């Protein structure tokens, strides 16, 4: 390719000062945010290829075509096997990582390195596809700067100036590019919606799992990622009612709770609204699932979603971007009729499993068949028996896992208790199901909203009480406070808050956390939420019509001409900066001689210095005039040598004006004027 005909760099970059290692390090940094998501072998292989390339002397031979094709084929095959396809940001990034590593491995010319720069920029974008958290964006901004600096060095072919000169230059370019970029960002017409399938963006989708195994909430409760924010429009519900409903599970296999098969049915009609209603607005992070979270029990909402027979609010498609919706909930919803089908299903238990638990439940029922009494018996059983709350429970047996938990290990967290409780209720003939979701939330006093994180995930139960409907029971709260393990106390925020186990506020840290959450919310709302709708509103409010072709063309033209104007701005150059050094030193010296200064007419420095020297005692005058002469020489030189400037500054700062300025009467200084 003649166009990329390499400059001096082509026929051998010098080993020292070559931008190649820096470029490789930058590429590694670009992929760093993905290392957790990518298989370890892939990261290792890419690292090995980079190291192998660096160990080779520079104008190395390209590996033979067959080896390269083989490596590409193997890499592609592995990516296909690992991710079952190539669609989506994550498999794409993985493939890009392998291709970049291969390109780096075979790189021999300037052209190869340029391609690496392009891949690097694209991968920064791919990182952003996976997350746009403010800290990551900041990190990637630094990486962009680094990559641009390396690109500049690559193009200039040699190292000039200090190691920071390329950084400075790159920063200059990016800053000058900023105004145009901002204009384009705000006015460039946006098209909403995905253009093609998105594929998985992450191996760990946000939010709650689709099945409830013992331990499936384990990862979530340890994560501090924000799931949604909620702002109450009107009164806030009391703390005991802040349960946000997520997936509901009503089929039990003996170890695992599965979502109900009747979820597609509409909610029971025979409901009565009573008690207080709460209105609120939720800003949901992209969760990649269809679950929308709402306070128990939602009756109205502002988004295209439907409520199913389990009172789950479901979006018609996976939530892939920041979603805001308002909803109204009645915590005290009454239901009158339970269809027979549903009743049977919510009593079903695997045949023959967990005999001791069944026996216990039947025993309770025999003593007092009233459902409320059975519930009370079960809760006091959890409270009085030595049940412990811990995030690291022992493993349960596959068969009779409920028996194992209730009578042997007695250690677990919300999901174990909810599961065991539902089992006991069903065994005692009370329809019951497990509900997962979030509880509580941290109040952000700056933003005026609550933040709900993954660590606020929780599981509880609902039991059917005839005449009242589904009633929430949270067995985890029955555990005695002194039986919560210290580790769980430290980690848990939402789980135990309702039981009054909240940690005392931690002063500064809490304040920082609150500010950060508030910032995060603003970031989400205004930066990440900027889209076609906000754009139309913004343009409309500025006074432009909506998406008039001529208008946005005009905007873009303004942006382009702005970029030409920005090109005139430059960093102050080195000569000017060193000039400032001698001038600063001279002024400092003058201030030491006479702090309040002498009025200066339009006169050359020497004439001024002569006048000034009258203020000095006689034997100091000579040294001062010599300095003035040196300053004058430097100041009127076209290109003063930096080391002389430095020496002058040193001499000026060392100069001792003696016992202080000669006292000058006010009158004489007035004459100076």
């Amino acid at each position: 390719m003649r166009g990329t005909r390499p400059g001096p760099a082509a026929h051998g970059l010098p080993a020292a000062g070559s931008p190649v290692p820096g470029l490789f390090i930058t590429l590694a940094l670009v992929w760093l945010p993905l290392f957790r998501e990518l298989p370890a072998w892939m990261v290792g292989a890419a690292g090995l290829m980079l190291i192998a390339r660096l160990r080779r002397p520079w104008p190395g031979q390209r590996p033979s075509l067959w080896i390269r094709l083989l490596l590409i084929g193997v890499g592609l095959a592995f990516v296909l096997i690992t991710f079952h396809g190539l669609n989506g940001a994550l498999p794409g990034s993985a493939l890009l990582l392998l291709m970049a590593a291969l390109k780096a491995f075979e790189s021999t010319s300037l052209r190869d390195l340029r391609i690496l720069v392009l891949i690097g920029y694209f991968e920064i974008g791919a990182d952003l596809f996976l997350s746009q958290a403010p800290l990551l964006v900041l990190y990637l901004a630094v990486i962009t700067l680094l990559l641009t600096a390396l690109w500049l060095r690559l193009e200039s072919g040699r190292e000039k100036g200090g190691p920071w000169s390329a950084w400075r230059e790159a920063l200059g370019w990016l800053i000058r590019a900023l105004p145009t970029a901002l204009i384009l960002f705000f006015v460039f017409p946006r098209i909403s919606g995905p253009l093609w399938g998105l594929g998985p963006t992450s191996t760990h989708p946000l939010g709650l799992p689709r099945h409830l195994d013992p331990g499936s909430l384990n990862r979530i409760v340890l994560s501090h990622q924000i799931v949604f924010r909620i702002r109450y429009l009107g009164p806030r519900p009391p703390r005991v009612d802040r349960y946000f409903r997520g997936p509901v599970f009503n089929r039990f296999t003996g170890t695992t709770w599965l979502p109900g098969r009747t979820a597609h049915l509409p909610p029971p009609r025979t409901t009565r609204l009573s008690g207080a209603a709460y209105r609120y607005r939720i800003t949901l992070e992209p969760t990649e699932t269809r679950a929308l979270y709402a306070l128990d029990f939602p009756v109205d909402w502002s988004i295209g979603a439907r409520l199913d027979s389990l009172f789950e609010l479901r979006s018609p498609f996976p939530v892939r971007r920041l979603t805001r919706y308002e909803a109204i909930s009645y915590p005290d919803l009454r239901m009158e009729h339970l269809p027979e089908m549903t009743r049977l299903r919510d009593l079903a238990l695997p045949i023959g499993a967990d005999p001791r638990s069944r026996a216990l439940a039947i025993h309770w029922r025999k003593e007092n068949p009233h459902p409320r009494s059975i519930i009370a018996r079960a809760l006091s059983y959890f409270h009085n028996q030595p049940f412990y709350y811990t995030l690291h429970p022992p493993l349960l047996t596959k068969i009779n896992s409920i028996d194992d938990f209730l009578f042997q290990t007695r250690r677990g967290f919300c999901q174990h208790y909810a599961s065991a409780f539902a089992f006991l209720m069903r065994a005692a003939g009370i329809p019951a199901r497990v509900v997962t979701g979030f509880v509580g939330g941290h109040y952000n006093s700056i933003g005026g909203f609550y933040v709900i994180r993954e660590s606020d995930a929780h599981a509880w139960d609902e039991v059917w009480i005839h005449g009242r409907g589904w009633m929430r029971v949270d067995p985890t709260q029955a555990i005695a406070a002194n039986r919560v393990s210290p580790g769980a106390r430290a980690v848990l925020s939402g789980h135990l808050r309702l039981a009054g186990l909240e940690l005392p506020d931690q002063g500064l840290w809490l304040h920082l956390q609150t500010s950060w959450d508030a910032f995060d919310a603003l970031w989400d709302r205004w930066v990440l939420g900027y889209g076609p709708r906000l754009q139309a509103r913004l343009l409309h409010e500025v006074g432009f019509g909506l998406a008039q072709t001529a208008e946005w063309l005009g905007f873009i033209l303004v942006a382009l001409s702005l970029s030409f104007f920005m090109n005139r701005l430059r960093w102050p150059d080195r000569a000017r900066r060193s000039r400032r050094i001698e001038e600063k030193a001279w002024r400092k010296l003058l201030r030491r001689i006479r702090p309040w200064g002498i009025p200066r007419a339009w006169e050359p420095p020497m004439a001024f210095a002569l006048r000034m020297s009258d203020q000095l005692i006689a034997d100091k005058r000579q040294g001062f005039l010599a300095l003035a002469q040196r300053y004058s020489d430097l100041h009127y030189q076209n290109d003063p040598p930096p080391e002389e400037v430095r020496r002058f500054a040193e001499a000026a700062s060392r100069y001792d004006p003696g016992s202080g300025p000669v006292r000058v009467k006010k009158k004489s200084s007035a004459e100076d004027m």
Partner: protein
Amino acid sequence: MPIPRIRRGQEEPDAGRFPTGSVGTSRQTVHYRKTYILPTPFGLAFALMLAALFLGAMNYNNNMAFFLAFLLASTALLSMSRVHGNLVGLVIHPETPTPVFAGESLHLAIHLENPSSLPRLGLVLRAFHPNETGHTIELPAQGSVVLTLSVPTRVRGWFTPPSLRLESRRPFGLFVAWTRLPPLPPAIIYPAPANPALPLPPPSAGSGSRRAEHPDVEDFQGLRRYRPGDTLRHIHWPAYARGSGLLTKRFESPPIETRILNWHETPGRLEERLSHLTRWIMELEAASCPYGLVLPNLHEPPQCNPGHHQRCLTALALYPEPPP
């Protein structure tokens, strides 16, 4: 590689071919209307990458990726006007190329001055016939520099230097800006000196005889004041003894052999003969011996000075080919 156009056996190419003032070596300023700019293949690849990034951002509704794409696009735009600014306003002053021997490289040199406070990045000279690229040079603010480009030569005669363009791709290599330089004046390419050399023709009759008889006698010319560097052997000691200071005896340079280089005495075909003559001239010039040159169409009397040397070589370079 295409063979450079060559004009042989002609008078100097017609100066009227070039508009006055644009030919050769006058000083000129690069005008923005004569500065062209196009994306490089790398620039197109960059645009492709940006388009992919933009589509991805659209697909994922990802504002930060949008912003990255716009930031990079804006940087590219800035660099476009910077690349253009690398050339506009430069003062160019081509040098008349010095003659070389056929087969050597002709060095084309262009003086560049930067009257502005904007450093000019990545300046490089390029020729297309033959395809040659010079070294990349940076010209600081208010600086000046000489850019050179070597083009190979093959045959003797008039050589029209290829048309040159001054180009720049810095800072990012996304765009290339160029301006065509005014055509350089044609250069004379001397015949290639023969290798191996034939023995020199014997000195012409009478020229070296006196030297053979009185090898140590030189013509005494007079006295002059001693200058540092004069050899002690030539100091006039008797004068010094008389107290008239240090005087140096001056002598006429020794009469050396004068040779006539005759075309008719060289063997071989036309080009070989010219090569032999060139070689002899080079050797005699190096030894500072006077020589004359006899060609069928030219008779240069024996002499020894740079002008003579140049005249003889030019005559050889432009010797007309025999009609076919």
